[in-house]
C-alpha cells in the first residue's frame, strides 16, 4: 500500500510534482501513466526517500520509507536502468545490496536465476545492454522478496520476450497480494498490464481509477458504417445527440447512437449496409484526450513560417 498526500516537489522555479494525492492498493497492478517529464520519476524517488518532498508526504505500508527497519523487505525498487557501478559485476552488486540486510548468498542466486541473468552474472555491468540492466534492476528489486514493488519504466529497453516476462511477473506478484506500482509512458502496455491507473501530466494528477473506467469516462465509443446510400442514411440518423462525420463517400463515423439502433433504422428504410462496426476507444486515445495540453514538450514545427505567422497573429 502506497499513500501519497499532497505530495509536492519544487526544483527552483519549476514545480515538478504539484500537490499529488493517490493510493496504490495491494493485490493490484497500478499503472503510473504520463508523458515524459510529467513527474513520474520524481514521485517515485520521493516514495523511496531519495528526494525530499517540498510539501506533503508519502508512506509505504504505513510508514515513511526511511523509517522502515528493513526497507528492502518492504519495497523493491527499479528506479532507472543500471543504478549500478559500471566496474562491478551483477553478482557483486546484488551481494552488496543483500549484505546490508543480512540476506544470504542463496537469495542472490535465486534472483539471478529468476531474472535470467545466470550466464552474465559474473560480467561487469558496464558492458550490459539496456535490457540486461533492466533485468538486473528487477533482480535487485526482488532481493528482499518485498511486499511492494515500485518499478520506473520496467519494460524500457526490453525485447518483446522481456516485455512479456515483466507483464507476467507483475501480474503474478499482484496475484499473490503484493502492491505493484509501475510507471510507463506506453499506454498500450498499461492497457494490458495494469488494473488501476494514476494518470499524471505536468506534475498534476489528471485522473485515477480502473483502466476500464478511465477509457469509458474519457472517450465516447463510435460506430463505423458503410453503405452505398450513406447520404440518405445520414439524413435518417440525424437527430439530437448524434454526430456524424464522413471521411469517404460511402462511410460514416457515428457517435451518440449504438450499432443495433443504426441497423434497425436502416432496415426500416430499406437502406443496405455493407459494414456496421462498433469502435471502442483504446487507452491510447483516452490518454491523448486526457493529457491534451498537459504534455510539456509539444512536437511542433517551430521553424515553419506558417506556424510562426499564426503564433504572431495570435498575440
Amino acid at each position: 500500500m502506497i499513500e501519497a498526500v499532497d505530495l509536492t516537489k519544487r526544483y527552483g522555479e519549476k514545480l515538478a510534482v504539484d500537490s499529488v494525492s493517490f493510493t496504490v492498493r495491494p493485490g493490484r497492478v497500478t499503472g503510473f501513466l504520463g508523458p515524459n517529464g510529467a513527474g513520474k520519476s520524481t514521485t517515485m524517488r520521493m516514495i523511496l526517500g531519495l528526494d525530499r518532498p517540498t510539501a506533503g508526504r508519502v508512506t509505504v505500508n504505513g510508514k515513511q520509507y526511511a523509517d522502515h527497519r528493513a526497507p528492502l523487505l518492504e519495497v523493491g525498487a527499479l528506479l532507472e536502468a543500471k543504478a549500478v557501478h559500471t566496474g562491478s559485476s551483477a553478482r557483486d552488486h546484488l551481494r552488496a545490496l543483500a549484505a546490508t540486510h543480512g540476506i544470504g548468498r542463496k537469495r542472490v542466486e535465486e534472483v539471478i536465476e529468476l531474472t535470467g541473468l545466470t550466464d552474465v552474472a559474473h560480467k561487469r555491468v558496464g558492458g550490459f545492454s539496456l535490457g540486461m540492466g533492466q533485468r538486473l534492476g528487477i533482480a535487485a528489486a526482488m532481493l528482499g522478496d518485498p511486499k511492494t514493488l515500485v518499478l520506473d519504466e520496467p519494460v524500457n529497453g526490453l525485447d518483446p520476450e522481456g516485455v512479456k516476462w515483466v507483464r507476467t511477473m507483475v501480474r503474478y506478484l499482484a496475484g499473490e497480494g503484493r502492491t505493484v506500482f509501475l510507471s510507463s509512458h506506453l499506454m498500450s502496455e498499461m492497457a494490458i498490464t495494469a488494473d488501476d491507473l494514476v494518470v499524471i501530466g505536468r506534475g498534476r494528477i489528471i485522473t485515477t481509477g480502473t483502466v476500464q473506467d478511465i477509457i469509458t469516462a474519457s472517450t465516447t465509443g463510435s460506430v463505423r458504417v458503410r453503405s452505398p446510400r450513406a447520404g440518405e442514411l445520414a439524413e435518417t440518423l440525424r437527430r439530437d445527440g448524434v454526430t456524424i462525420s464522413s471521411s469517404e463517400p460511402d462511410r460514416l463515423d457515428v457517435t451518440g447512437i449504438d450499432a443495433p439502433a443504426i441497423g434497425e433504422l436502416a432496415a426500416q428504410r430499406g437502406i443496405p449496409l455493407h459494414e456496421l462496426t462498433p469502435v471502442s476507444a483504446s487507452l491510447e486515445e483516452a490518454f491523448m484526450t486526457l493529457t491534451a495540453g498537459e504534455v510539456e514538450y509539444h512536437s511542433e514545427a517551430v521553424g515553419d513560417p506558417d506556424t510562426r505567422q499564426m503564433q504572431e497573429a495570435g498575440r
Partner: protein
Amino acid sequence: MTAVTTEPGRAPSVPRDAHVTFLGELRAEWIKFTAVRSTPWILGVTVLVMIGIAALSAWSFSFLLDNPEETGGAAAFPADFDWAAQAAGAGYIMAQIVVAVLGVMVVTGEYTTGQIRSTLAAVPRRLPVLAAKGVVVTIASFVTGLLGVALGALVALPLLSSHDITLDLSRDGTLLSLLGAPLYLVAVALFSLGVGTMLRHTAGGIAVAVLIFFVLPMIWPNLAPDFFQDTSPYLPSIAGARLMEGVDPDAVLSPWQGYGVMLAWAALALLGGAVLLRRRDA
C-alpha cells in the same frame, strides 16, 4: 521465458528478521570496494611505488654519507636523524595522492554511475553509508601504508648497512616515524571521502584533495606576510607530516598534536559531507 519461482508469502531464503545493520552495511561497502577490479590494482601499485621511493631515498642517503666533501654529509641533518625510518616512509608523499583519489572516488564513483540510488534505497538513513565507507578507506589506506613502509624498510636497510645504520624500534621516535605514514594516509583518505561526499564529482573532488595535500604545503609557507608563516603549521598536510618528522623542539606542534590537527580537518570535511548527504536529494 524464465519461470517465476516466487512462492506466496516470504521466500524462505530471505531471513524473516532480516534488517539493516551497520555490520551488514560495512560488509556491503567492503564488497563494493573490492568488486571494482581497479581498486586492488591501484593499492598494489601504490605499495610498489612506496618501496621504490624507499630504495631511492636509501640510495641517496648512502651517496650523501659517502661523499661528505661534495654534499656536506650528515652535517646538514639533525644529530639524531633517523636515516632508516626516514627512507622507509618517504613514499608517503606519492601514496597520499593515490589514497586521496581513492577516498574521493569511493563516493563520487557511485554518483557518476547512479549506484548511489541503489545504495541509499537499501540504507535510507544514509549516515551509516558514509560511516561504513570511512571504515573501509581507513583499513585500506592503513594497510597500504603499513605494507609500503615495512617492505620499504626491508629494501632500504641493505642499502644503508655499509654506514652501520639499522632500524632500532626501541629508539625514541622510530616506531612513531614508521607508523606515521600509514596514519597520515588514513587522515588523507578520510578527508578526501568528506570532500568527495560534499562535491559528488570525481574531477572536482580530486582537484580539491590534490590542491590541499600537494599544492598548498608548497605555496602557503613561502608566502611573505606573517599570516601565512604563522598559520602554515596548521595546514592538514604540514600538521600531519609532523608524525613522520620525529621529535623536534623547534616545531610549533608536537607529532601527536599535528596529527590531531590533521584529523580535525578530516572530521570537518566528513561533517560537511554528512550534513549534505542527509539533506540533499540523491
